[in-house]
């Protein structure tokens, strides 16, 4: 376990250095308003990243979760609008169930037909997006039609402060949801046999089978949980921005995978932790958000994110190079 801790310590150190640098360029970085908005920006992408983490520890990869998120949120909200239903708990359960089912579809194909996860999830992402947009349409459910309870749920703040310019800024309560989920995933990964089976499977599938790991159950657990988290995060996102857009999250897979890799997970499986992933997500979100603070033209954002992905993966490739040799 020492090695995990040291990996996380390195990432944390990188994060701190970057924070200090950004703070030096623009002291507004340390402003409460900025920190609160940073925290808010972590929630949805962080929950998705936890799902991707599970998949990467198992040695797989998933590019379909943004499609799953969008499908879950749009189907749920459209159904709520159509039934004129207002509530919180049931819709979140519904979105999660949609996510689980779609994740199970991924797991089924990967397990049954032994195809590499990247190709499978590219295909399922296309199916899911295509069906949602094709059958349900592309119209955005705006704030005026969004169910009130959802909006109220997403609006909750833990605390609010009045900024210097007089505007009040709040720390979203959704951060608690994120932390709770992170804690659960951490406990599952670290303290349950299911979690440890994922690490074993990711290190060596054949040995895991010999040791008595139910490999099929492991695959289903991993992809269904990732689906669940994606579905849940999708609706949470919707309730936080007060609209439901079926085209949301396009291209987000790149950011999330980058964050997880940045957080020390190995694309070859067997390595990765919740804490590392959370730091990775925070780092990526922070850098993206801070580009504006640092007066970098927004058109450069993508280039910077790309450079971060390449740099982070170059570092992990260097770390894992012994395995390849």
């Amino acid at each position, binding site marked *: *376990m020492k090695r995990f801790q040291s990996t996380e310590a390195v990432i944390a150190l990188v994060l701190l250095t970057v924070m200090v640098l950004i703070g030096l360029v623009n002291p507004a970085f340390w402003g409460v308003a900025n920190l609160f908005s940073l925290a808010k920006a972590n929630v949805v992408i962080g929950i998705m990243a936890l799902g991707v983490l599970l998949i990467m520890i198992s040695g797989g990869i998933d590019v379909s979760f943004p499609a799953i998120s969008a499908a879950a949120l749009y189907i749920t909200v459209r159904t709520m609008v159509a039934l004129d239903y207002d509530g919180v708990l049931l819709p979140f359960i519904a979105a999660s169930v949609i996510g689980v089912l779609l994740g199970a579809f991924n797991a089924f194909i990967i397990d049954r037909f032994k195809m590499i996860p990247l190709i499978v999830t590219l295909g399922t992402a296309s199916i899911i997006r295509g069906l949602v947009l094709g059958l349900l349409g592309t119209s955005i459910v705006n704030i005026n039609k969004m169910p009130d309870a959802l909006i109220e749920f997403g609006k909750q703040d833990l605390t609010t402060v009045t900024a210097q310019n007089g505007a009040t800024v709040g720390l979203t309560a959704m951060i608690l949801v994120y932390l709770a989920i992170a804690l659960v995933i951490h406990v599952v990964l670290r303290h349950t*046999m299911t979690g*440890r089976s994922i690490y074993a499977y990711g*290190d*060596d599938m054949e*040995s895991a089978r*010999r040791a*008595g790991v139910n490999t099929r159950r492991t695959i289903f657990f991993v992809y269904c949980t990732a689906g669940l988290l994606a579905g849940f995060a999708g609706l949470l996102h919707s309730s936080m921005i007060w609209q439901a857009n079926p085209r949301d999250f396009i291209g987000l897979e790149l950011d999330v995978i980058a964050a997880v890799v940045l957080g020390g997970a190995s694309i070859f499986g*067997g*390595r990765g932790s919740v804490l590392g992933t959370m730091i990775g997500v925070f780092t990526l979100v922070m850098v993206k958000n801070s580009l504006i603070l640092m007066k970098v033209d927004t058109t450069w954002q993508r280039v910077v994110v790309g450079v971060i992905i390449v740099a982070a993966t170059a570092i992990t490739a260097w770390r894992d190079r012994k395995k390849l040799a």
Partner: protein
Amino acid sequence: MSEYLIELKNISKRFGGVHALDGVSMGIRPGEIHCLAGENGSGKSTVIKVMSGIYTPDAGEILIDGKPVDRLDPIAAVHNGVQVIYQDFSLFGNLTVAENLALNTYLLEGRGRMDWHRARKMAREVLTRLDVAIDVDAEVETLPTSGKQIVAIARAILAEARLIVMDEPTTALTGHEVDALFTIVRDLQARGIAILFVSHKMREMLEISERLTVFRNGRKVAEGAMSSFDEPAITHAMTGLEIDEETYTPDIPSESQPALEVQGLSVPGHVDNVSLSVRPGEIVGISGLIGSGRTEFAQALFGMENATAEAFRIAGVDAFPHSVQDAIAHGIAYVPEDRLSEGLFLTQSIERNMVVSILERLRRGLFLDRDAMRRKTEEMFASMQIAAPSPETAVGNLSGGNAQRVMLGRWLLTGAKVLILNGPTVGVDVGSKAKIHHIIRDLARKEGVAVLMISDDVPELTGNCNRIHVMHEGRFVAEFSSTAMTEDAINDSLKALK
């Protein structure tokens, strides 16, 4: 109560047209140390997989404690106390020692919670019982091979094994470590656990085992108390051949220029200042344990390591290879240890596997000269006597012996003058083995190729080489030639290594 813990009766198993096991019967008694011997391809590993429930036999009966088991699957085998320690140990390098030890037990018990505290306690207890000091919180991939093996044994003990099958357990161990392993094995026996050693190393069999079963070509050819066997008898049973006492004595003018001459070759951490000279027509053997630096030495000669040398001459010309391409250009060839993962392109044709290293030379302008390619392949296909429908056949369909001949053919096409063979007959059946030895000797004698042969198989070395070096911890520690070069002498020398 039956005499046997586990008994196989008339077990047969076919793969495609091949009889991997043909009506085999054998039994293991509780608490005995039993040895299963046989050459590669004799059915040893198939029988392990039958006992551990991975393969279901096509015919025959398995009895455990005298009761027939109609379907032995891996879980049932574990429940009956059968544990296999494979050569790769099946451990998880990314997990700690404690967790590796607890994982099977917890999974077997159907636990949901990973109890770290109990895992550490269990691990400490079992390691203390084995009288070894290993940090239970260390990640397994940081342990040396002998440490991993002990963890694997400890795991089997924790799973309440009544029979532990060990597949070639001593291959990677030093003489000292083998002694330590044997102490542990005798200790296990004292606790009533039966051990099935699967090995082809005779000396060890004679030292540790009480009973012996010998397989050849999927059949049992001998069994009985160890005391009724001696080395020649075992060899005869394993190979079906009388031991060929003839050794390789080339007729080399002593003043002839060495084909390969290396002085002070070092690879940091692996090879320490080794010098070697091989003349055309010589076959020089290198013996040593895994981890002795023998593979790194060979790879350094082939331009694959970050090596330094005071002198490196091929046929008298300075030719230090900085890359594999350099080495090939200088006429050095290397047949790697692990043919499947390092040598062959299984799904590709024999032709492509043979010409891969001369593709650059087969260029005619921008394109490959397909006529030349076909001509060269067909020549080599014939002279290597490869048994396959045509050079278009995928190499994956060939037997081990034929596949190895494809490898030899590849290097002969490059016009190699120095041929380095690492485990030339690993995974090759007895008949093919003799054929490959014959080819190698012919190359040396008739074509004047200088051969460097690295092998675990001491008889293979003494039978084919005119000189043998023993390597240990990166150095050549002993040299044998002509009359001094007996199996006993070399085995004793290996045994003395610490």
